[in-house]
């Protein structure tokens, strides 16, 4: 039987492979052997940095809690901890269910060791933030409560974390099943819906980060409600645990004990689920019928299918409307909101080009210009969706993005996407995965400048003419690119 440290080392290989898969899926661009070593090292660093980032977020939350210790702030901390923990790790846990631990069976590894390796790989997903929370929150509690409260805080954090892991394990398994099965019609729509929720998890963390200060500032507004229904709140999570730490009552102690019991059951459930990993996705067979359409429709349909089956691309599709909404809700100017929104249109369009299996299209009768055009159409559609969402926001809330600016941005959007894609292709950014982050940053800056300049010129003297001239120049260049072989 191998020692725990040996098994931990082996689980590290599976974990790195899982992180690698997640990274590759997020960047469906070419990869060359020469960059693989650098890439692997970068993924290792990124994985640790991501965990440190989440731990920092929890530390900030703990600081906010320390500034105004109360049942409400403690409860808010525990609730946010549960949901952020589950949301942050949802994608990684989904990838965990893709790992085939049976590959170990060709080596002298027992079934028991195989299960232990699976468990340790699973623990590796959460390790740093899990430990950080258990350390930080009890220390914060010590500032305003007696020593035994810190011990109770450890229990509360542990219960919240296990609850989050149960939640994320369940969701990860469901999402893996749904996302790994291609489907059409109604099933396809359901699958896409799952994909959207999966992608939204990421945005929710982003939104929480931006609204964290607001949440803690407004939390005490609920104090009267807490007083009125005190008994009820002593029974339910997370306020029962908050009462347990700050002001233990018989009811809160009893309900917290029940939570601990549930947590133990939760741990058993997690162990059972991660040790019986198998692909549950069904394989469907059906009638043979294909819809032959025009080359452009064929290309767009193919791209749409890839988007709806790639969580990373679905997320990128969602980013522009959400970014636009966030920018508006935080009171930024229309001009700034549009430019920020467009930044994500560039990332989306560029990622679509990266996802294009270039070697396949090279063997087919299509020009490079045609491929740029197809990606620009999808980028433009995403831009229109984002603008529609922003317009609805304006209608509902009275303030919002300038409609004239929206109209003005339409022609330049299309042209700039095409120019940026061509530049990205010329610089070979899509081929070099290790360099792609810097390349994308370069493309984002170029795209933003090309997009922003005509709009900025509009408000200047003779703005209409200068703006029109700048846009015309961009459109001419874009048309020239579309015509290329």
């Amino acid at each position: 039987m191998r020692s725990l440290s040996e098994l931990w080392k082996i689980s590290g290989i599976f974990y790195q492979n899982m992180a690698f898969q997640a990274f590759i899926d997020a960047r469906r661009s070419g990869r060359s052997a020469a960059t693989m070593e650098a890439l692997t090292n970068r993924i290792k660093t990124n994985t640790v940095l991501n965990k440190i980032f989440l731990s920092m977020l929890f530390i900030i939350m703990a600081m906010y809690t320390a500034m105004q210790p109360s049942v409400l702030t403690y409860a808010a901390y525990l609730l946010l901890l549960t949901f952020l923990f589950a949301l942050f790790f949802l994608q990684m846990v989904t990838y965990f269910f893709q790992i085939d631990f049976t590959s170990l069976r060709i080596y002298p590894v027992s079934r028991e060791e195989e299960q232990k390796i699976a468990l340790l790989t699973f623990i590796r997903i959460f390790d740093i933030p899990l430990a950080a929370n258990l350390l930080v929150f009890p220390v914060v509690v010590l500032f305003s409560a007696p020593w035994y409260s810190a011990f109770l805080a450890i229990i509360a954090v542990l219960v919240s974390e296990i609850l989050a892991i149960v939640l994320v394990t369940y969701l990860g398994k469901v999402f893996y099943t749904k996302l790994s099965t291609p489907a059409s019609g109604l099933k396809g729509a359901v699958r896409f819906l799952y994909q959207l929720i999966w992608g939204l998890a990421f945005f929710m963390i982003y939104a929480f980060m931006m609204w964290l200060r607001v949440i803690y500032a407004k939390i005490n507004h609920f104090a009267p409600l807490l007083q009125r229904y005190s008994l009820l709140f002593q029974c339910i999570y997370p306020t029962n645990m908050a009462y347990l730490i700050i002001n233990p009552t018989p009811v809160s102690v009893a309900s917290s004990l029940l939570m601990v019991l549930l947590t133990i059951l939760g741990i058993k459930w997690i162990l059972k689920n991660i040790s019986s990993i198998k692909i549950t996705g069904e394989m469907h067979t059906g009638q043979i019928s294909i819809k032959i359409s025009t080359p452009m429709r064929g290309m767009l349909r193919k791209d749409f299918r890839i988007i709806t089956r790639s969580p990373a691309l679905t997320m990128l599709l969602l980013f522009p409307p959400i970014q636009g909404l966030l920018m508006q809700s935080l009171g930024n100017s229309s001009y700034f909101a549009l430019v920020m929104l467009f930044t994500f249109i560039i990332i989306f369009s560029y990622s679509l080009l990266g996802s294009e299996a270039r070697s396949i299209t090279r063997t087919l009768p299509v020009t490079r210009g045609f491929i740029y055009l197809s990606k620009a159409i999808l980028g433009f559609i995403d831009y229109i969706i984002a603008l529609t969402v922003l317009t609805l926001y304006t209608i509902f809330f009275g303030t919002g993005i300038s409609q004239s600016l929206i109209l003005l941005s339409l022609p330049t959007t299309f042209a700039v996407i095409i120019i940026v894609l061509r530049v990205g292709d010329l610089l070979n950014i899509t081929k070099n995965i290790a360099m792609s982050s810097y390349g994308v940053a370069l493309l984002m800056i170029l795209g933003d400048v090309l997009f922003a300049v005509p709009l900025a010129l509009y408000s200047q003297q003779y703005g209409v003419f200068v703006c029109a001239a700048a846009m015309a120049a961009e459109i001419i260049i874009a048309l020239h690119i579309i015509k290329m072989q």
Partner: protein
Amino acid sequence: MLSISNLTVKYGTVVAVDGISFTVKKGEIFGILGPNGAGKSSTLKSIMGLVEHSGNITLNGKKIGVPEKNLIGYVPEEFMLIDVLTPMEYFEFVASLRRMKNEERLARLIYAFELEKHATKPISALSMGTKQKVQIIAALMHDPPLLIMDEPLNGLDAKSSRILKELLKVHTEKGGAVLFSTHIMEIAEKLCDKIAVINKGKIVAEGTVEELRTQAQVSGDLEDIFLKLTGEDEYIQGVVNALSK
């Protein structure tokens, strides 16, 4: 039909294909034989524009541009498929880009290669042999005059191999041409009208099996001819001698 002249492919300082020339005529199955790393795949990839190269490649007298690619069906050695799509979705994509008018031929090919039961599974979940069938069907579905196939029988079961070989014969009988690379001597011997033996990026011999036999001055089968032409016969004899000690 296909004419290649002075084709050179370099990967950095390594010369993979060194100024080779040959012609594939209508109604001809032209085989490229060579040891691993001889430059077979690089030659075929050059025709499809997948690798940088110098020299002239023409199809029916024209350089191979976008319209000419509709006259070619290409089966690469490594899988060039879109994993998240099902075979049917992939065929739909390729058929649309090729502006195909109907799917009758596709349906027949799917039936011939028994792909019906796999047609709606994701390509990533298919076995190697089934993936190869997808590539072959995608190359044949628009009934192109020229087929370029890089080790097309890799992974295929006996039945599918036989069907493909018969299809290639019918294709050339109807006036089409086939250029394919293989390392299986029996197949090349049975199937090819003409063979080019390529070694270290250069064509060392070209002609019918009979012509190659004369050039190599060997009376055996194609394997003997091939080993003699590539100079590997002496090496093999040396290895056999060493192993038998």
